[in-house]
């Protein structure tokens, strides 16, 4: 088990006041909140900060944690000394109000081993439907065109016969239907948390997210992309090949096109009823003048084409 330096995680000195701790938590929680931050490790950081705050905000837990000493380094192998928490009042008190799922083994070992919430109401007639479970799934954009199956690993809490909560890992193979959109939900009936007594199982909701794609950006059913074209294709018009997630297509570039012009491919976006569109933004790419012949051609244009791209600026 690795030692966690809760002060370091919160960016604080060990001498920080309770007010400092609260302020730092508020700031970091906003910064790393997974709904707010787009940083890749936001969720991990957010959980770490939540765990650190759970300990440091509670004077008793903090005192016990401080009691371990300041000599451990973050990530160092750690085993709590015997009776390390004797004399501290939180013993047996278990968790306060935080959702401890996702807290580290380190936390679990120190503060989480007792008094874990729910007791199985055995013998009674208590029946309740299980809670619905939510998870996020990353798929490729192409999966929205062809459909796919994804294997999804979930952790869900479960009560054992002694009324203790355990996290259970399970893997589900789920069909990703054709036509899914960013942020859309798939509901799997009866795949949520188990109910109590005769209660039915909850549902599982999967929230779909697309992995970043090198060519396309999805917005609802529509896709956006840039298509590079040559100056002569733009000026004279041309038939070019363009990629779509469903395969190559022939695209007509109208004569007199320019960078920033948009073309719409109707019904070529994410399949559905109706299917989305693909919006193409043209981007004229200038060939390099890296041969004598190329230079000569550019010079010829310079001499024969009366063209001032800055005319609108009055210069």
């Amino acid at each position, binding site marked *: 088990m690795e030692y966690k330096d809760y002060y370091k995680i919160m960016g604080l000195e060990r001498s920080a006041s309770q007010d400092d701790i609260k302020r730092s938590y*508020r700031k970091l*929680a*906003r910064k790393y*909140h*997974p*709904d*707010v931050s*787009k940083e890749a490790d936001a969720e991990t950081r*957010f959980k770490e900060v*939540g765990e650190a705050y759970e300990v440091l905000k509670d004077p008793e837990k903090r005192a016990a944690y401080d009691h371990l000493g300041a000599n451990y380094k973050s990530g160092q192998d750690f085993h709590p000394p015997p009776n390390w928490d004797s004399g501290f009042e939180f013993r047996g008190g278990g968790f306060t109000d935080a959702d401890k799922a996702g807290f580290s083994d380190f936390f679990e070992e120190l503060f989480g081993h007792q008094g874990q919430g729910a007791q199985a109401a055995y013998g009674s007639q208590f029946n309740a*439907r299980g*809670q*619905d479970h*939510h998870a996020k799934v990353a798929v490729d954009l192409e999966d929205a065109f062809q459909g796919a*199956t994804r294997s999804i690993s979930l952790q869900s809490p479960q009560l054992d016969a002694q009324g203790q909560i355990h996290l*259970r*890992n*399970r*893997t*589900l*193979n*789920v*069909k990703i*239907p054709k*036509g*899914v959109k960013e*942020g*859309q*939900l*798939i*509901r*799997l*009936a009866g*795949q949520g948390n188990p109910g109590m007594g005769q209660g039915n199982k*909850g*549902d*599982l*909701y*999967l*929230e779909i997210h697309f992995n970043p794609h090198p060519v396309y*950006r999805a*917005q609802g059913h529509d896709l*956006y*992309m*840039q298509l590079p074209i040559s100056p002569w294709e733009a000026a004279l018009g041309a038939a070019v090949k363009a990629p779509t997630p469903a395969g190559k297509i022939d695209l007509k570039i109208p004569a007199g096109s320019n960078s920033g012009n948009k073309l719409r491919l109707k019904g070529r976006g994410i399949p559905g009823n109706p299917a989305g569109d693909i919006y193409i*933004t043209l981007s004229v790419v200038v060939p390099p003048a890296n041969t004598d012949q190329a230079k000569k051609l550019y010079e010829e244009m310079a001499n024969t084409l009366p063209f001032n791209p800055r005319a609108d600026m009055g210069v």
Partner: protein
Amino acid sequence: MTKQTLLTGILVEDSNELTLGELSRACGKPAEWLLALVEEGVLEPVGDNQSQWRFRGYCLRRVRIIQRLESDLGVNMAGAALALELLEKIDELRNQIAVID
């Protein structure tokens, strides 16, 4: 434990919307709280009266975000609703930038 059966879910979208009860169950919050979100203009149910209300899939996503903002950051409902709107706007702009870049 591994289950090898292939599960097929239902796409939550316009064609199969959630009732107030289903939405309440899906987020584990009481209906009163959801009614307040309708008042706040965050959720736009389809249907004339409360018993016929149907919520589209995006409503559940919004509810979940509001829920997390409220519990994790200690903002109130109006604040969470504002943050949600701004987040959605940022997402849209980020998407546009990604296309330009």
